[in-house]
């Protein structure tokens, strides 16, 4: 879709002036185009809030004070407040409310199922914790909540079980998810019309009825993607491998290690194993001292030597980089569309995924880079879903005009919005970006990107 058309649709959406045909056009763009999904909310947000910059007299709190109930009504309210101190929680209230919420969620799921294909295709699925042992918790944004039986869950929540814990989650489509000990499950939102749930570690038993036509349920692990059709499966995720066992039905197993996809039937297994890390190949000085790379587990690794564009990259393109021995291809940055940052951070390389990896203080990000001599510095950021903010690191004295190498501990990244809110081990990371170069200068090249622990 052209900028002009997108601009028109964004303005009309912000004013609620879209015709039904335009709504269909915009919905299709949002469902299929990642860039539109980022741009449209931004445009709507700025368009609407710009109206608040209009010169006006300051808001007068007296308006509210004058509108508050007075006299006998105020007394009645106060009497009600004092008689029924809702501010002080009553023991029965929350269990009953939670149970009611579960009933509503299950009921809503049933109604949606009965409606079948007529239900909106991308409505976020409801989740409910139907059983939980004592050592289980829900991670909601930056808070860790106890995971009691009956706790209503939301898309975006993480469910964690301890070393001897377990939990069972029920979701729309008659899908039961049984978490074993030491498991982390992320209840993601719908991505491109399909439900994607992340399994960072541990074991997950999935029992799913046949999915409605068009409904796709996918589990993403650090090493594989498993798409369920209607089946009973067991997923086991260790630091370096993911194993799929299918008891009934069938599932698609896509290995992120070798890029192959296979169909796994009842009684069959599939395995994706990350090969052991290789030592970093660089003669350039490291920016930060780090443990011997050969002893680490590799979480992400890209050398681009097959010349193909890997999935998950949302910025950059594979191209022949500045000459050096033993490497032909690298990731060339894309121009950053930003009038404010383009002067100093004009080129960017970015990876995005619903679950790119789970952060840990022991992880080290390494990469080679080639930077225009006119560049002052480089920046690296990642988006931490659980803390709802970016974390960044600046390379203030990079190598210019020749290949350099960086090794940075993720523990050294700082929060962009809340510096006092450090990342917690296990937080879900959904994007990782590297920026550098100047507008009008030579592009940034990045190669041998590796995240290891």
């Amino acid at each position, binding site marked *: 879709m052209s900028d*002009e058309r997108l601009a028109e649709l964004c303005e009309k959406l912000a004013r609620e002036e879209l015709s039904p045909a335009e709504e269909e056009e915009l919905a299709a763009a949002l469902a299929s185009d990642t860039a539109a999904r980022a741009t449209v909310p931004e445009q709507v947000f700025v368009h609407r809030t*710009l109206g608040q*910059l209009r010169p006006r007299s300051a808001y007068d709190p007296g308006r509210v004070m004058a509108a508050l109930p007075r006299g006998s009504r105020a007394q009645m309210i106060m009497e009600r407040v004092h008689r029924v101190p809702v501010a002080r929680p009553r023991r029965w209230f929350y269990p009953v409310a939670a149970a009611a919420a579960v009933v509503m969620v299950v009921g809503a799921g049933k109604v949606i199922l009965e409606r079948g294909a007529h239900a909106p295709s991308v409505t976020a699925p409801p989740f409910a914790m139907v059983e939980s042992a004592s050592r289980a918790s829900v991670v909601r944004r930056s808070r860790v909540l106890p995971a009691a039986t009956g706790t209503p869950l939301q898309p975006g929540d993480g469910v964690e079980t301890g070393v001897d814990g377990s939990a069972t989650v029920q979701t729309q489509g008659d899908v039961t998810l049984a978490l074993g000990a030491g498991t982390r499950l992320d209840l993601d939102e719908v991505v491109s019309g399909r439900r994607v749930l992340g399994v960072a570690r541990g074991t997950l038993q999935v029992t799913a009825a046949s999915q409605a036509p068009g409904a796709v349920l996918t589990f993403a692990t650090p090493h594989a993607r498993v798409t369920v059709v209607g089946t009973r499966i067991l997923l086991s995720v260790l630091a370096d491998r993911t194993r799929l066992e299918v008891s009934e039905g069938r599932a698609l197993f896509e290995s992120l290690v070798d890029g192959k996809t296979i169909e796994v039937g009842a009684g069959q297994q599939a395995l994706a194993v990350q090969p052991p890390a290789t030592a970093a190949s660089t003669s350039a000085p490291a920016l930060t001292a780090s443990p011997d790379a050969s002893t680490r587990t590799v979480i992400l690794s890209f050398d681009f030597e097959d010349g193909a564009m890997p999935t998950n990259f949302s910025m950059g393109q594979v191209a022949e980089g500045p000459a050096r021995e033993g490497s032909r291809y690298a990731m060339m940055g894309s121009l950053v569309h930003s009038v404010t940052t383009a002067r100093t951070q004009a080129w960017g390389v970015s990876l995005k995924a619903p679950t790119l990896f789970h952060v840990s203080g022991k992880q080290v990000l390494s990469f080679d880079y080639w930077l225009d001599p006119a560049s002052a510095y480089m920046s690296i950021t990642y988006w931490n879903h659980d803390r709802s903010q970016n974390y960044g690191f600046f390379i203030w004295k990079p190598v210019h005009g020749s290949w350099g190498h960086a090794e940075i501990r993720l523990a050294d990244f700082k929060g962009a919005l809340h510096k006092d809110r450090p990342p917690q081990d296990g937080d879900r990371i959904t994007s990782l970006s590297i920026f550098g170069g100047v507008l009008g200068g030579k592009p940034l090249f990045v190669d041998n990107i590796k995240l290891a622990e």
Partner: protein
Amino acid sequence: MQQVDAIVEDVLGGNRERYRELVEAYEPTVRLLLAALLPNPSVVDDLIDEVFVTAYLKLGEFRKGGDFRAWVRGLARHHAMNERRRFARHRALNEKYRAEIDHWVDPAVERLAGETERNLVAEMQDCLQRLTAKTRRLVEQYYFEDIAGPALAAREGRSESSLRVALFRARAAILDCLRLKGAVPGE
């Protein structure tokens, strides 16, 4: 705000005037969320009144030690959605596609409007000043002087589509500026 619990306790105890402190402290965050969710800026001030009156009536339900900002934003979201439903009743909508658009857009807009306690309106004003003079003038005429697109395009001697794209890029530049300041979350 450190003393929310003490203020709430005072108000519930009958010191009605202390409620003004909560209104003054949380009006900017309520304003921003309402503005971001509503198509018509002219109703924002009236809805702010409604949100805070509702909050006053429900103050007994606020849990001690809770996040008052999140609580009052929840009330604001409820009022905004009611207003949108009222607005939508007068229009022909394709419910299925509308649900899909809302699914993709609303949470992202709320995230942009709600991740910081900083005065985003003031930050946005500063970002507006950083646009080129020509672009800033376009934005001011369009948004503050209510000059409609066709009239503004004619006045500026450009096509409507070129004006639309210029405003599109100006809004993108303002958002980039807010991101650079750390006033809104990153992509």
